């Protein structure tokens, strides 16, 4: 019956596996969480949860389990039963049972229950307070790698306070990332972007076996080592990201991709700029998209050699005029002499390899809002959906000549 906690954790999105669950059972059998909910909270978390990003979900599941919210009363009763009768726990020695029983007498269940109820009330308020998707709320979504605790102050240590109380406070909300695909998968996909440099640059740090044999033979069998310069990845990447209004639902997805690209230290050069719906004369340096912090698209084209890999990320869904007409830019007063599609073609023409990653799933491209402009954009750029598979396909496309 205690297994319910396992399923509850999974229900709240904590990726617990059976291996870890069994480890917890072993820990309990070893008597590592003797009869105290506080200790159980810490021990179970250390074994079951492997990232601070899931601490919040764990807290919720823990609170739900031991408070009984959103779970049938049956479970609640059983939990209390379990708490009240620790002697039925398997795998304890007689000595441990005795200690457990002694410790349980100090635990005032009624008081604990009352506290649960109080916490339940508070939890409800906090729960509806919004701010669920931290990292998107208010601050710049593309700021920094997903769940880095930047700016988030977490309360102090939990000494002497009840685990349930701590769980109800949901102190780890700031660490949530709610990743569906995960940065790691993106990182792995991006590793395909690899093109080794020539041997002309760098320091000689690699043993050249053929030359060594040659030299050694020439040296009458005396070992003579020859070193050569190792080859480094020479891939240069330009990442352009759409931060237009229609991109809001995909902010999390994009910031994952962004962190993955950002962490991929194997590129020789990596640049990223932002655009709003479509690329025109200016590219923006931050997500606010203001001309005071922008760079001319022409200058970017001049600076970057044509072997730079261009990755555009966006939904490509906009009003047709934004793509096809002069002065179609969504900002009044900015104006553009050439339609957006011309700029897209220019980008495509300048770079040998380019792809468009679309945040809209491929199955919807034909009939979603913006299907007209998606079709037009696809005529210019090879388009892939922004999933791990899509990214993998896109990186392949970026590596081959067309």
């Amino acid at each position, binding site marked *: 019956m205690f297994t319910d906690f396992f399923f509850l954790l999974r229900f709240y999105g904590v990726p617990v596996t059976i291996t870890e669950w069994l480890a917890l059972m072993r820990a309990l059998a070893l008597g590592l969480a003797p009869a105290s909910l506080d200790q159980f909270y810490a021990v179970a978390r250390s074994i079951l949860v492997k990232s*601070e990003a899931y601490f919040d979900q764990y807290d919720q599941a823990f609170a739900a389990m031991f408070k009984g919210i959103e779970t049938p009363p049956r479970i609640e009763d059983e939990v209390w039963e379990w708490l009240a009768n620790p002697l039925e726990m398997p795998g304890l020695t007689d000595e441990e049972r005795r200690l457990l029983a002694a410790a349980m007498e100090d635990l005032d269940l009624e008081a604990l229950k009352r506290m649960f109820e109080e916490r339940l009330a508070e939890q409800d308020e906090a729960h509806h307070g919004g701010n669920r998707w931290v990292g998107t709320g208010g601050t710049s979504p593309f700021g920094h790698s997903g769940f880095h605790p930047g700016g988030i*102050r977490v309360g102090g*240590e939990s000494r002497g306070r009840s685990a349930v109380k701590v769980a109800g406070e949901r102190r780890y909300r700031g660490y949530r990332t709610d990743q569906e695909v*995960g940065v790691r998968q993106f990182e792995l996909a991006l*590793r395909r972007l690899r093109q080794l440099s020539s041997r002309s640059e760098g320091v000689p740090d690699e043993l050249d076996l053929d030359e060594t044999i040659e030299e050694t033979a020439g040296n009458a069998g005396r070992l003579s080592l020859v070193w050569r310069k190792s080859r480094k990845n020479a891939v240069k990447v330009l990442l352009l990201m759409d931060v237009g209004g229609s991109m809001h639902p995909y902010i999390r997805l994009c910031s994952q991709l962004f962190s993955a690209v950002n962490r991929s230290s194997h590129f020789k050069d990596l640049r990223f700029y932002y655009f709003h719906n479509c690329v025109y004369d200016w590219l923006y340096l931050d997500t606010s998209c203001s001309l005071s912090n922008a760079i001319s698209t022409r200058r970017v084209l001049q600076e970057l050699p044509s072997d730079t890999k261009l990755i555009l990320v966006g939904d490509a869904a906009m009003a047709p005029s934004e793509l096809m007409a002069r002065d179609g830019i969504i900002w009044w007063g900015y104006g553009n002499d050439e339609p957006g599609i011309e700029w897209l073609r220019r980008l495509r023409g300048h770079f040998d390899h380019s792809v468009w990653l679309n945040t809209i799933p491929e199955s919807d491209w034909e009939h979603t809002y913006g299907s007209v402009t998606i079709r037009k954009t696809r005529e210019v750029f090879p388009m892939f959906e922004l999933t791990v598979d899509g990214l993998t396909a896109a990186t392949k496309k970026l590596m081959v000549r067309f």
Partner: protein
Amino acid sequence: MSQSFTYTGTSDYIAAPDLMQTVNVAVQLSRPLLIKGEPGTGKTMLAQSIARGLEMPLIIWNVKSTTKAQDGLYIYDTVQRLYDGQFGDGDVSDIGRYIKMGKLGEAFAGDERVVLLIDEIDKADLEFPNDLLWELDQMEFTIPETRATVKAKQRPIVLITSNAEKELPDAFLRRCVFHYIEFPDEDMMERIVHVHVPQLDKRLLDLAIQAFYWLRDVPGLQKKPSTSELIDWVQALARGGVDPKEIAARLPFMGVLLKKDHDVDVAQRALSSGRRR
């Protein structure tokens, strides 16, 4: 037998109670303990403290971006063998002489139970943790060149730290016990600083810590000052004979806390706007 190893912290390292408990869980389940946390929260020092607390030798394997899993097991020094073969030094037929144990090998091969710290595992290649799964699980590996098996006589206590620069693979995480060291709060910080700098004016320390937390909350900092920087700073303040009143107003020796031009600018601006208010 394992019951006798219980970590309770040491005099020079302040460990939160839940951290101590997690350490003991990892020790008793003989699983690696993965420690994450902001830089400067004492991840590496924890290993030293555990080693001292449990009176075991500490072996540190510092992981770098070029580190391969193989390096930790053993290195077969073929070049030395080749040289020896040419100059007739020693017995070349004994390959065992040219097998040098890596840090992990060292930890396994010893007679004593040791604490093994794999520091900053996220610095290495993405596949690095996966390559160590078997070795950390079974606490053994084979050396094909000599057909020898190195098996831990006493399972070492393995501590792994990560700065979360890279995501670690799930298969690896499943096998670990995890603890996230939170940034200490002001009271905890006072105790930590006190351990490192015992003779310090209480008033100076209080004000310095207040200013420190104020600075960490200034929005827009690229690199927030951490514990070690605070410790350096209070020492600088004490030696420089700074008037405690000056601390909040001026942040003397700010260069000890902030290492980037950008951050110093941001802090200066926050300071001057604070004064106007």
